């Protein structure tokens, strides 16, 4: 399914509905994350912004308006809605009770099937979700699709004038890379890549009219055994709150706190 040269590039952004990290987050009795107070993952806003910028820079002839896709329960429609308010043109919501409890491996199967149905030329994701924090979905999906991955782009995301080649900068711990890949490809962007836009009043009103397609597993041709806990490669045995760190002591600087700090480090053999 390599990209044909005449049709506009189709861009699909993957977004996730996650518990708001501004509030305390907990697991339920089934070792699953409680999903009240959930929102569009903050890190996915950077993916959407990158996609919108590519689409806008190339106009409607080279690059189509952006579609967003989420996999999640009914309430995850809120994440699609927020993305439409930010500027995406249409949404796809894959929702099926059988998918609940899928690990990254099973989730990547669902995403592969969804991408093959939507048929984009470019898939854009954030650097990781803010709940599972694995940062592996872009790689797993690219592997399944057999597409190049241009991952953890931290800036200079550019699509060539002929809309055939994607390039970006990737800031690693010890070096800075420039990457280049032909479409179709999977792009993931970090929170350094751009400044996501805020929805304005007009775009919030306009979002109501934008189309959202809801798909179940059967629409993707996936059987339920391939997803959920039974289709996962990892089983969660236990999940809960982390043990609290023992309380330390707090002192107020009386002019000698620097010396007290050194005494403390010496007690612990840290100097």
């Amino acid at each position, binding site marked *: 399914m390599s990209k044909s040269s005449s049709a506009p590039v189709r861009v699909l952004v993957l977004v996730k509905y996650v518990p708001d990290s501004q509030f305390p987050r907990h697991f339920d009795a089934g070792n699953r994350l409680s999903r009240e107070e959930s929102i569009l993952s903050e890190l996915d806003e950077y993916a959407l912004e990158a996609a919108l910028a590519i689409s806008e820079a190339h106009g409607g002839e080279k690059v189509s308006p952006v579609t967003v896709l989420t996999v999640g329960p009914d309430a995850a429609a809120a994440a699609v809605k927020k993305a439409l308010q930010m500027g995406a043109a249409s949404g796809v919501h894959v929702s099926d009770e059988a998918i609940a409890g899928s690990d990254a491996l099973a989730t990547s199967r669902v995403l592969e099937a969804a991408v093959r149905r939507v048929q984009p030329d470019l898939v854009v994701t954030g650097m990781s979700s803010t709940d599972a924090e694995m*940062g*592996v979905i872009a790689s797993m999906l690219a592997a399944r699709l057999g597409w190049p*991955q241009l991952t953890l782009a931290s800036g200079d995301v550019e699509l060539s004038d002929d809309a055939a080649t994607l390039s970006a900068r990737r800031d690693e711990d010890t070096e800075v890379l420039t990457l*280049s890949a032909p479409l179709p490809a999977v792009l993931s962007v970090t929170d350094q890549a751009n400044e996501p836009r805020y929805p304005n009043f007009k775009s919030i009103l306009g979002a109501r009219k934008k189309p959202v397609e809801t798909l179940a597993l059967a629409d993707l041709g996936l059987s339920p055994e391939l997803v959920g806990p039974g289709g996962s490669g990892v089983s969660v045995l236990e999940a809960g709150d982390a043990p609290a760190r023992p309380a330390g002591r707090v002192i107020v600087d009386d002019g000698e706190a*620097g010396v007290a700090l050194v005494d403390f480090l010496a007690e612990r053999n840290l*100097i």
Partner: protein
Amino acid sequence: MSTILYFDSVSAPLSGAERELAAAGAHFGGPVAVVGSVPDDAAVAALARAGVGRVLAAAQDPSGSLAIAQADLLLAAVRELSPRLVLAASGARETEVLARAAALSESGLITSVVGLDDELTAAKSVLAGAGRSLSRGVTATVFVTLKPGAVKAQEAEAVPTQGVEPVETAGRSGAVITSRTARARGGRPELGEARVVVSGGRGTDGDFTAVEALADVLGGAVGASRVAADNGWVGHELQVGQTGRTVAPELYVAAGVSGAVQHLAGMRTAGTIVAVNTDEDAPIFELADLGIVGRLEDVLPQAAVEIARRRA
């Protein structure tokens, strides 16, 4: 049963993290190193001294591409050896390569593991450090990326080297690396490996002089909060937190860092945490073993001078 250890690259002498991975491989049995860029003789010898005699690398060096060629190499090794475990450090490159190979071999993947026991139960710190989980792979091969110290294993005895076995792969390149530039770090230790990290935040108001001076007297690395990095006071490569680096040094000094959830996620497993902040209600104090309510520009230089005095 073999254990595959994936290294993005290896050079002699091995780093602490590389020796730890080799020891973990020997501990779980039948260690075989798979190396993403072709290692030289000295690196192969160093692996053998650390207990890993068998080393596989791609017949064509894949280091000019991102993830695809390395993952194809790893996948070929997994199909050949049917290992119980594939282990790697939890860096970005290793994680991507393992993610691809796990997907293509339909295997379970557990990332950023802080403890892996003999039953292969993996402990993780989750929800930015607020939660913990235990999980286990249910597939024939399980892929695991490890945080430092995750496997309690003695360093293995040296074994004879068998040289590098070249592995033929499909030769797909995917995204290519068209340029690479090393990042300077001013002679300080690498943030992820440093024994001591001194971080500055909003409270520095852009002046990292006191932070750097204390880091240098302690032989440590300099870190930063997201606010400090976003303001351009230091490079983003020094940002500690959920979207930056995760560090677990013996000592973490947070100076003028308020302690947002996203920052705490990157440092809460440090051995000892010291916080200096003018705001007595800063959340960082809840995590600190020693909290000092005061001005960092007073406390840090005084501590640096005192350390130098005691050592003199």
